[in-house]
């Protein structure tokens, strides 16, 4: 028997993720994590500026309105929305919740997350504008 390997070993092309829409969305979702990290950092900088008093806050606002930052944050927000939607729609697969011996339907789990998001958003809005 020959020891030579005659099998053909296919290689994954570099642009494999452009071949199917589902692969593309997946890669974008992975990429969105970077933008989420950025938004967290931005929020921390914001909180720090607020904590340091009026001058620092004014500086922050001036910086935050620079065009490149507005563009960056708009893009980051779009990725945030993508992240949220895809994440929420994946959860029912990962979590099996039984209530009274019956499986909670996926739509209810997804709906509950949007409801929770709405409640938290309203709460934050109330805290900030109070």
């Amino acid at each position, binding site marked *: 028997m020959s020891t030579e390997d005659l099998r053909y070993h296919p290689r994954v092309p570099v642009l494999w993720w452009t071949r199917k829409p589902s692969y593309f969305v997946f890669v974008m979702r992975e990429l969105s994590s970077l933008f989420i990290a950025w938004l967290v950092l931005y929020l921390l900088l914001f909180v720090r500026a607020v904590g340091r008093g009026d001058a620092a806050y004014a500086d922050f606002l001036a910086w935050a309105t620079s065009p490149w930052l507005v563009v960056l944050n708009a893009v980051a927000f779009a990725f945030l929305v993508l992240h949220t939607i895809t994440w929420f729609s994946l959860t029912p697969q*990962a979590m099996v919740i039984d209530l009274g011996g019956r499986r909670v339907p996926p739509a209810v789990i997804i709906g509950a997350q949007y409801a929770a998001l709405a409640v938290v958003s309203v709460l934050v809005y109330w805290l900030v504008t109070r």
Partner: protein
Amino acid sequence: MSQSIRLRVARYRPDKDTEPGWQEYDVPLREEWTVLDGLNHVKNEVDTTLSFRWSCRMGICGSCGMNVGGEPRLTCATFLSDYAPGPVDVAPLSNFPVVRDLVVDITDFMEKLPRVKPWLIRDEEQPVDEGEYLQSPEELDAYKQFSMCINCMLCYAACPVYGLEPEFIGPAAIALAERYDLDSRDHGTRQRLDVLIEQEGVYGCTFVGECTRVCPKHVDPAAAIQRYKLKAAQESVKMFLLPRALRR
């Protein structure tokens, strides 16, 4: 019926070719013909050198999986008429070495599968004269979905993680681990977790979800993997927080 449809079939003859090429065949387009029927027509009437695998022709044995039109499919359950007027691309499953034409080598999976111990593991075997291990319909329902896997490997062909990181144990193996974990007669959860908690285990998966989309048996391997991740994470936290005596 005089109509026909063109098949573009990937050919790889290890004795002649260094990489796969395409060959075209025209086959009759009959309403009740599957892609596999088209390939069998080629093999019987046109070109006897074409190689491919099949056995049951009824979506049960899992051996006829190929990429049809770029998607992993069971060729015995995929109708030619859905691709009319053609042409239809037929290629071997992605992510596996090609042995010849449409035949891939799934040795890798055959080596990985036993690692998750896909069989009933008992702490204590009950004597035969005490009868069978009984199970209620609810207990059967708990794992039934994951027991439908036919090892067709379509999920591995659809998984880009497996393509990029061949060490990843993969969707079907994890779905089968989950099948036995959820079985009320089984006590092997701990042993399987030890295997799947490794880097090549469940954490290799980044939740592309394609495995579930292509699975012809609605096994939902993506769900099995995510549930396993949850289980593994809980276990890690327990290991970290609890004193040895309280673990398990």
